[in-house]
């Protein structure tokens, strides 16, 4: 029997596996779960990195656009402000030249003459320190006031005063308060500093 059975062709039959779920051992469970977790973590990291790179990239582009537009706006603003500065500088120069013309001695002398002013060549000096009057007061007169007309050239004088605007009849009278209503301001301490020698001269030109 054994031989017959031995020579009979035998249809190979794959061993049948009887797989059945078995509870995983502790070690197996750990390996599988760790592998899965690390992949998930890696995926999460990848997702996160990719996301951050994309978001960062977009942010950089947006930021760059904002900064660029801001910078461009600033550049144009600066340029505009520089133009305005130049314009204002030119206007300042015009005004300064007008002031220089008006305060030039040539203009002042001419204006003073037109207003009928004459130089007092015999001034009287008051010495506060010595309580003395020096000199004899004499009225100023046109005949004794020296050179009155301007004789000095000034090609830079392009603006001149208009003394006719300052004549007494055309100047509005300012209301002056009654003396009794004026009270001394004690808060202001006027200190007259006298030079060691001489008498203080008027600072006016």
């Amino acid at each position: 029997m054994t031989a017959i059975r031995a020579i009979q062709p035998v249809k190979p039959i794959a061993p049948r596996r009887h797989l059945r779920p078995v509870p995983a051992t502790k070690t197996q469970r750990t390996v599988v779960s760790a592998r899965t977790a690390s992949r998930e973590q890696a995926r999460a990291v990848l997702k996160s990195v990719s996301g951050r790179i994309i978001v960062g990239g977009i942010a950089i582009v947006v930021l760059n656009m904002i900064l660029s537009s801001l910078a461009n706006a600033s550049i144009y603003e600066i340029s505009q402000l520089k133009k305005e500065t130049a314009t204002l500088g030119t206007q300042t120069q015009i005004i300064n030249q007008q002031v220089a013309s008006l305060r030039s001695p040539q203009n002042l002398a001419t204006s003073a003459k037109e207003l009928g002013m004459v130089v007092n060549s015999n001034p009287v000096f008051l010495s506060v320190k010595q309580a003395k009057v020096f000199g004899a007061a004499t009225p100023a007169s046109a005949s004794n006031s020296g050179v009155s007309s301007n004789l000095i050239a000034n090609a830079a004088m392009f603006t001149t005063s208009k003394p006719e605007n300052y004549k007494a009849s055309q100047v509005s009278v300012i209301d002056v308060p009654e003396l009794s209503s004026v009270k001394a301001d004690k808060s202001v301490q006027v200190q007259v500093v006298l030079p060691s020698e001489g008498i203080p001269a008027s600072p006016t030109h």
Partner: protein
Amino acid sequence: MFNEATFRRHQVLAVLVLALILVFIARLSWFQITAAEQYREEARDAIEVTRTIEAVRGDIVDSEGNVLATTIFTWDVNIDPVNVGPVTLDINGRKTPFTKEEIAEYIAGILKISTKSVLSKMTGEGRYANLKQRATATQFTRLKNLDIPWIYFDRKQTRYYPQGAVAGNLVGFVGTDGSPLAGLERTMNSCLAGTDGKETYEQGADLIKIPSSIRTITPVRDGSDVVLSINSDLQYAAQQEVAATVRRLQADWASAIVIEAKTGKILAAAEAPTVDPNKPGAVREQNRGSRIFQAAFEPGSILKPVAAATAVDTKEATPTTQVVAPDSLRMPWGQYINDSNAHPPQKLTLAGVLAKSSNTGIIQIGGKVDSATRYEYMQKFGMGQKTGVNFEGESSGVLADYKTWDKMTDKAVMFGQGVSLTPIQTAAIFQTFANKGIRLSPVLVSGCRDKDGNLSSTKVEPEVRVLSESSASQTIDMLEKVVEKGPIGRTARIFGYRVAGKTGTAQIAEGKGYGKLYAVSFVGLAPAEDPKYVVAVTAYKSRTISNSLGATPGFVAVMKQVLKTYGIPPSTTKSKNIPTEWK
């Protein structure tokens, strides 16, 4: 839960992104590091601009800070002829068309030039035509506001002198290209001129400068200010007087100098005619300098106090030393020395010799001092040498060595002939009397002040002790008598003040002899009891008055102005009682 394919896709994506980043980094490195310089150069050539920043020239100011010379901007107005055409201007909010001819007329009106000239320059195929050089800021603003596309401007620095001819003789002027040509503009150029800077920057296609790209290659350094000792108000008053003197005397020129006795500071150095630096071409060339420092001539009797002071200082005479002074004195070698007018012999003291300005008297008393000593004193008074004021073209005058003096010159130098002085040298002599016998180097430039306000004071020559204090005082006593008792000197009196001074009527050398016209002068100091100011007035070639009467009114006016300006109280003492004559 876990998707292998997704994971792999993420991995691939990450690798690709990383690879891309690496490529970018590599490329960026190429641009930024490896080939950076090459690209930078290319970029620079395309957008970088190099600009010279012009340094602003410093100001010239007076002792009170008033500006006498400064720098402003003017504009060269240019057009682009090939693009010239009709324009539409905004007139009061309305668009108004202008033809080429109309706009030319409008521009001509603003620039104050002829319409024909504008039209001729508007025609042509060129890209440049200059309409006007140095247009003012007002003209520039009006034209710029028109916004005409074919007009463009070049801004330039221009020198501006707000007080015109006030101190024009001192300040000098610059050429049209800004180069200093005369006066302090030239001598003080190292202080006034700054150093130009250089910078590069990048600009966009619209020519806008990119601020972050500015690179300073050389920093600009603006010029410093020159501070003068003069007071411009006083200078103006003095110039008015000398201008009036020139008119009154029909003189070639006149000058007035004010010196502060104890410091040597020149407070005014006025002359007429003089130059307005804004328009130097308006006066003749000989009137563009300063004769105060540059013109030397024989001063005449103004020098008698030098001979008198020398005699006093060497103890050969006192103010009361007596002499008989005829109107003409025969010299041992046969020549005569005469006084300016005929008169009987006068019994004069040395003070009287000065008061009467006697030639015959001064040579008798002054001649008691030997020639070598007199020459030594004249040198100590500063004759024959520059004053140290360091003004361009300053003359040292002429004082020949006493060994070369002939017999006549040996006498003539005592009354101001045979020796030449500039007006500033003459003024310095009287400054010596006023400063107790010590001569100071005149100061015109106080110093150079940088933009931080630091003043580098001008180096001055050391002071020179010429006379003892006593001799200087005695000389002033004698000079007071000139003003009190001198026939011409008394016209130099100033009410309330003690004044000391000396007249001078000097013959002017012409050819081998002397001409008919005179240099008339008066130099004085006040108050005599404590001299503070010296005023020297000279009129050259007076044609109406041939003696110092032509100069004393100018002296009085200027000295009064000085005393008023500086608040000098009138004198409270009287002069010393020194006789001028004897019996």
